[in-house]
């Protein structure tokens, strides 16, 4: 049979097989496994059939626990099922996995193996998740490459049906799941041959049916449970043989022979490394190089990890082996060693106890950890392992790839050691921005070369942790031999820098080998560019004798109508310079690829790409090397006055040197300092807002909506700017409350992302030129220096006393200091303005429980964190537990806080005689409803601390304890923050529990109506008619009314807000939530990049959502008043149809392009949803409801309709 090559990533390679051989596929998103589920959903939406002609039923569940339950049920009923997961997702499946295995039910879970969160979350790859599942009894098959992920998916599905033991098929997250490699694809006949009908029929024969009913899942007692557990032994014992048999059948069809374990290396090796997963490739290269140098070394790759092939391992090793290093990609603190190590040690011990031991002497076994969280694993790190094995007393346990200066476990890295590259291979590395299309073009190049030439190709892509202005690095290899280098390109033949601004900020030419070709996208031409290069870059160009080329790709792209997407301009240049294909052929193939890719999107797109391609080569110019001038000064990564931790640690992370940090540099428990984003001056904006004080009306809206807190407003007495530099802008502050003050609106030019939301919302327009507003986007270049100076001075102006202006107005809230700033969220993010507002209103007295998701990522993804502190050092204390448990996590904080406050009060009562009644009584009796009252309590606590420090005698133990708890006498808030995936789906059970608890917590749901962080999968918050991942054909059911569920408790404060529609209502809702002494739930409409909108109009979309009745605004204030009307509808009756709102958002509009008839149907239903909801809410606005309560004149539990600062809202002055 003719075998086809395709370029696929590991996820698609595995998913193709899984989809073809399954009938029911419950799914849930989790990085890096989500694409497997997304592919299946896409294919199901496109009606692709499985092996038996049926389209698999792909169903999204509320969590991985739900997936496992649904999978278990489907299997019991006799449907072939599969799913995909990673990390915590796999952990949530474990209870069901025990059941599924105990019932000998065939199925496969495909795992893109990922780090389990410990001291920190990590989305990257290691084996800590799969190792956690090893006690479930599932067979575990490890693929080490994209080809293996494809082949082993089939091996697993075939073997499980024969063995009845379920399989975990795993491969390394990102390294394999996201690496594109050229593989031979399996054909349908291969699948049919290995998935035997007899096995499928036998499986169905065991299914639940009322025609032949059985009971499965009994409860058993001490008398028989044990024996019954042992009864399955023969099945587990048979697994290894079955897997080998299936592998042999695969080999007979494809020629690709795999063993449960495979030895590779010198036949007389005395030192061997045993390894599993993608590190195989790097180890193999190392072994080949060392063997070629005459060393007696080898490697053993483990493919079936469980049931552990102990006999096969012993048999595969040369009898000459004296020392073995077992590498584990996981860490199990407290264990003698990691799992693979322990298994090998046990295997040797058992083997040596045989009649005829396989080795003359038991080989020495040492164990090493590598690659946690996708840490690189290169030959430079592997070679020292063989050296260690040769030592007289090697380290029994070691680590590689890091420098451990604490417990001294690490082996050195031999940076000089690099295996020779195959003749004819090209290694290329590309630096770009996420927005410029670099990665997309490189993925295309891999496919073009891999699928239309005889060359092999590999692509791996590295993204930084920001969602706006992110830098991407593409690592590509092309060559005549299959590419097994499972690590980044270290010495490239071709280096491209697609953004001039990255030179000097990022290491670029450091990756070039001597004589390499360098392609730079430059606004400066070949004659001009040299003097604009940083000295370090010039030096490297000269030292490495680089062949240097430039092109002004942005100009070419712009002429072709491509905007800032320079991908199809740079791509032909790469082909031309790298010489992989003849130029004409390359152009033809690039165009062919563009045509295929964009055929669905229309001719205009194709024409523009073609124009860019055609103009590209003629603008490519060679640059002769010149002398090093050092004319461009380099800026230090962080300012000189940065704190110690930032200067020593954070700056290294920012510079991309985190890999070089020793163990001692890192916090031992994941605790990091606050407010470090301000040191990361990314300067990513091309356009920034410039303020025109002559037009400004002091409304504060621009500050209110800024997603990155880069526009600030300060109000100050005139004297505060006596020392202002010339040209510092300010204007009279128009206020009834505060006279003789000035106001300045200032942008932080190096922190702004240029999203433009501030300008979109600015209501003040010039009387002589309507398009000129009080704030306007302008090119950053001419303004940068001036605005930097202004920003520096602006920061030196003291914050206005918080008590001077009421907080229940936009203006009043926006002079408050944000304690959440400069996050890496998307430009125009709809979530962050709410978080920033919370931080302004209550930031110095709250603790935050943050669900995993966008808000935990832009909230705390290293290198820097946006949560910060005020001048007094106070700020929001922040923590993230998991995705699923955030409500409970926050409730725990509240329970602790209440316990501590209670304890502190008791201690205070006991110590009152010593402290004096005035102080103790004041502290105990303090009312803390308003900020001034809280400030008074803080002052009392300060005095208490002083007094306690001097207390001696019998009460000193009480005093010590009270000193530790004194801060808890000041009222604090608990804010539980997360997205809709958490609140509506995976965390809903906990959320409901916490709402029912009656405890004083404030829950902020940032409702983007999809799982934004993992790429826009549908949640139960996704509205009807919207297209999302996992709802590729448009979501057919209506959005869950979370607020209604919360309101049903009666004593929960509930508000639905949309800042873009009514910023004042948003502010009031947050103030009321804080003031309400029970649970509060604020559901905040958050426009999102996943909506497919112009993000600069983020707030306009929020406004239209409300105008159309899509998102009604309300506040439900539980009331103890007999005829109270708790439900206040805050938005006017809809004034535009839903159709007008949804027409502007791609998530809805795309359905009209893909499923026109269904779109019409769902649009009508969506309107009906909105109509019905409005009708219901209108009625609700008239209902009278009272919270059942006992009449006790305790002011602390009365509903507080007053604002935080003690001001009553205008609209509520006279009961309106």
């Amino acid at each position, binding site marked *: 049979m003719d075998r086809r090559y395709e370029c696929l990533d590991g996820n698609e390679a595995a998913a193709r097989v899984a989809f073809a051989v399954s009938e029911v596929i419950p799914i849930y998103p989790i990085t*890096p496994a989500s694409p497997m589920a*997304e*592919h299946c959903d*896409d294919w199901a939406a*496109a009606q692709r059939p499985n092996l038996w002609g049926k389209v698999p039923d792909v169903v999204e569940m509320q969590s991985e626990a739900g997936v496992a339950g649904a999978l278990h049920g489907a299997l019991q009923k006799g449907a072939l099922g599969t799913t995909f997961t990673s990390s915590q997702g796999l952990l949530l499946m474990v209870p069901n996995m025990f059941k599924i295995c105990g019932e000998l039910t065939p199925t496969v879970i495909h795992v893109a193996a990922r780090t389990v969160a410990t001291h920190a979350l990590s*989305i990257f790859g290691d084996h800590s998740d799969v190792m956690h599942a090893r006690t479930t009894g599932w067979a575990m098959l490890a693929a080490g490459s994209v080809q293996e992920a494809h082949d082993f998916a089939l091996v697993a599905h075939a073997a499980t049906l024969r063995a009845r033991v379920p399989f975990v098929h795993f491969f390394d997250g990102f390294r394999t799941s*996201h690496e594109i490699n050229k593989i031979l694809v399996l054909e349908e006949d291969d699948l049919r041959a290995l998935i035997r009908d007899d096995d499928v029929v036998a499986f169905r024969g065991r299914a639940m049916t009322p025609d032949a009913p059985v009971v499965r899942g009994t409860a058993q007692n001490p008398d028989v449970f044990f024996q019954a557990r042992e009864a399955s032994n023969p099945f587990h014992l048979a697994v290894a043989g079955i897997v080998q048999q299936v592998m042999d059948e695969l080999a007979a069809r494809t020629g690709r022979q795999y063993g449960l374990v495979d030895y590779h290396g010198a036949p007389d090796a005395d030192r061997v490394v045993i390894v599993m997963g993608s590190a195989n490739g790097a180890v193999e290269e190392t072994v080949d190089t060392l063997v070629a140098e005459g060393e007696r070394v080898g490697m053993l790759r483990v493919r079936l990890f469980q049931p552990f092939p102990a006999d096969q391992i012993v048999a595969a090793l040369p009898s000459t082996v004296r020392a073995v290093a077992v590498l584990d990609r996981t860490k199990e603190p407290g264990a003698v060693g990691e799992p693979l190590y322990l298994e090998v040690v046990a295997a040797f011990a058992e083997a040596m106890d045989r009649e005829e031991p396989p080795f003359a002497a038991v080989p020495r076994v040492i164990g090493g950890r590598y690659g946690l969280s996708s840490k690189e694993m290169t030959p430079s790190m592997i070679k020292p392992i063989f050296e260690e094995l040769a030592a007289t007393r090697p380290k029994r346990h070691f680590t590689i790839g890091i420098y451990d200066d604490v417990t001294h476990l690490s082996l050195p890295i031999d940076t000089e050691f690099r295996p020779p590259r195959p003749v004819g291979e090209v290694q290329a590395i590309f630096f770009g921005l*996420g927005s410029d*299309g670099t990665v*997309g073009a490189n993925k295309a190049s891999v496919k073009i070369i891999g699928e239309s030439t005889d060359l092999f190709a590999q692509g791996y892509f590295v*993204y930084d942790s*920001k*969602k*706006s202005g*992110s830098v*991407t690095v593409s690592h590509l290899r092309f060559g005549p031999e299959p590419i097994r280098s499972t690590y980044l390109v270290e010495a490239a033949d071709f280096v491209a820098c697609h953004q001039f601004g990255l030179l000097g900020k990022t290491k670029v030419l450091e990756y070039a080998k001597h004589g390499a070709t360098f392609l730079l996208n430059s606004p400066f031409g070949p004659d001009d560019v040299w003097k604009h290069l940083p000295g370090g870059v010039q030096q490297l160009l000269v030292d490495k004798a680089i062949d240097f080329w430039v092109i002004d790709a942005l100009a070419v792209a712009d002429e072709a109508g491509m905007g800032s*997407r320079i991908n199809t301009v740079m791509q032909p240049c790469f082909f031309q310079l790298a010489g992989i294909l003849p130029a004409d052929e390359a152009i033809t193939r690039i165009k062919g690829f563009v045509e295929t890719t*964009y055929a*669905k*999107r*229309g*001719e*205009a*797109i194709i024409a523009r790409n073609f124009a860019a391609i055609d103009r590209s080569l003629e603008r490519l110019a060679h640059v002769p090397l010149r002398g090093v001038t050092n004319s461009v000064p380099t800026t230090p990564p962080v300012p000189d006055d940065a704190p110690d931790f930032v200067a020593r640690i954070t700056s290294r992370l920012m510079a991309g040197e985190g890999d070089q940090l020793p163990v001692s540099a890192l916090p031992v428990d994941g605790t990091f300092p606050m407010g470090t984003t301000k040191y990361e001056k990314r300067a990513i904006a091309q356009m920034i807002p410039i303020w025109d004080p002559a037009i400004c009306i002091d409304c504060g809206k621009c500050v209110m909506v800024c997603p990155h807190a880069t526009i600030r407003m300060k109000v100050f007495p005139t004297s505060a700017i006596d020392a202002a530099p010339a040209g510092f802008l300010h204007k009279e502050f128009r206020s009834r409350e505060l006279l003789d003050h000035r106001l300045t609106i200032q942008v932080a030019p190096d922190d702004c992302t240029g999203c433009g939301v501030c300008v979109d919302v600015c*209501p003040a327009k010039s009387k002589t030129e309507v398009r000129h507003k009080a704030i306007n986007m302008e090119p950053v270049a001419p303004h940068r220096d001036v605005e930097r100076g202004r920003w520096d001075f602006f920061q030196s102006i003291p914050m206005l006393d918080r008590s001077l202006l009421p907080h229940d107005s936009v203006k009043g809230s926006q002079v408050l200091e944000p304690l959440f700033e400069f996050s890496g969220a*998307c430009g125009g993010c709809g979530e962050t303005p709410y978080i920033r507002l919370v931080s302004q209103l209550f930031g110095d007295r709250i603790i935050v429980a943050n669900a995993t998701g966008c808000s935990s*990522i832009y909230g705390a993804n290293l290198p820097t964190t946006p949560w910060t502190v005020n001048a007094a050092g106070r700020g929001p204390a922040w923590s993230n537990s998991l995705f699923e448990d955030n409500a409970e996590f926050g409730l725990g904080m509240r329970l602790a806080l209440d316990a501590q406050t209670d304890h502190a009060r008791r201690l205070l009562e006991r110590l009152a005689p010593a402290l004096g009644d005035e102080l103790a009584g004041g502290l105990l009796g303090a009312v803390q409803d308003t900020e001034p009252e809280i400030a008074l309590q803080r002052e009392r606590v300060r005095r208490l601390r002083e007094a306690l420090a001097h207390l001696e005698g019998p009460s000193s133990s009480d005093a010590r304890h009270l000193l530790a708890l004194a801060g808890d006498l000041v009222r604090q808030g608990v804010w539980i923050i997360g997205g809709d995936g958490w609140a509506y789906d995976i965390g809903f059970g906990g959320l409901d529990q916490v709402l029912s608890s009656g405890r004083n917590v404030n829950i902020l749901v940032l409702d983007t109506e999809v799982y*934004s*962080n*993992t*790429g*826009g999968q549908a949640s139960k918050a996704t509205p009807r008619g919207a*297209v*999302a*991942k*996992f709802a*590729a054909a448009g979501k057919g059911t209506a959005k869950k009314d979370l607020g209604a569920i919360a309101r049903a408790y009666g004593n929960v404060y509930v508000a639905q807000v949309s800042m873009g529609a009514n910023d004042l209502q948003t502010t009031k809702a947050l103030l009321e939530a804080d003031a309400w002494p029970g649970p509060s739930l604020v559901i905040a409409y958050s426009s999102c*990049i*996943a909506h*497919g*909108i112009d993000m600069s109009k983020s707030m306009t979309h929020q406004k239209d959502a409300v105008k159309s*009745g899509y998102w009604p605004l309300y506040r439900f204030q539980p009331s103890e008043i007999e005829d109270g009307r708790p439900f206040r509808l805050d938005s006017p009756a*809809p*004034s*535009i*149809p*839903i*159709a007008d709102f949804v027409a502007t958002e*791609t998530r809805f*509009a*795309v359905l*009209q*392009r893909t499923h026109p008839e269904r779109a019409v149907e769902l*649009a*009508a239903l969506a*309107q009906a949803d*909105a*109509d019905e909801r*409005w*009708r219901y809410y209108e009625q609700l606005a008239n209902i009278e409801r009272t919270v059942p309560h006992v009449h006790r004149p305790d002011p602390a539990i009365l509903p507080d309709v007053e604002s935080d600062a003690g001001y009553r809202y205008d609209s509520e002055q006279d009961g309106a």
Partner: protein
Amino acid sequence: MTVDLSTRYLGLQLRSPIVASASPLNGDPVTAKLVERAGAAAIVLPSLFEEEILAEEIELNRALEQGTEHFAEALDYFPAVDAFVGAAERYLDGLERITAQSTVPVIASLNATSAGGWVRYARLIQDAGADALELNLYHVAADPRRTAGEMDAADLELIAAVRASVTIPLAIKLSPYYSAFANFSRAAVEGGADGLVLFNRFYQPDVDLDTLDVVPRLELSQPWEMRLPLRWIAILRPQLGPDVSLAVSSGVHTGTDVVKGLMVGANVVMMTSALLRHGPKHVATVEAELRAWMADREYESVEQLRGSASQATAADPSAFERANYMQALRSWIAPRELTPTSPSRPAKWRPEN
């Protein structure tokens, strides 16, 4: 007495001279059926816009590419979709469905500013079963460097290009803003037009004084607007002869308006605003009025009435972008989507079936 209302337009035999011209009502098979049932003698579909085709492709592509390959956890934000139905495909699909269900001729409409690759859509429209094609010429003569002659020539080139691509009857819907209207009309006919539709109403931008924004605004036509086409049909009818079809469009609201149009020489009169305002059933009302007027005065047939009065002049340009023009058109919601209890829109009328 029986009155014979039949007429010929673009070579098509019509049961009456009352044609429902391009409006959202006709773009949707359900409401188009209501229009037909009310008695429209032919249905003109809303225009397929040249820029709409392009703009949709570009905007959709931008939206789908936005945010892709930025962040390791979210390499894109939308499901991979195999088949996109573009603006043109959706139009053609709607056309096919309406043609299939209609017992009266269906006239498709193309709106264009320039000859280009998109002209092939004229052929696709023909293949989809349209009985005739109305080419809607639209531009604002805002470029000070282009002369009237150059602009006319470009229009004629466009007409020729479309003519060359189809064999079905071709009508040209014109704006009144030609320097030498009679001359241009003759040239259009000589270039292959089987008929002319007078006139294209432009939706002029307005200024919202609350927001100080320039906003598109759709104003339905007023009866007085009919006088312009009346004059020009009166002038053109004798000049172009009886074989060229002429249609009055703009300001036709009542049966007597139809009478006037016929008297100056129109083959058909077209209605949009009155149907949007009063609903599809208004066609029947107008027909009854026409029938009553003719019967009262003992006219036997439309043939007899046509051209019994004819003579000639013009007014009014446009000043805003076409996107706004299209938006103004779209802001009329197809009534089928109205629900009796919907609070979000004025309850002007309700579908009857």
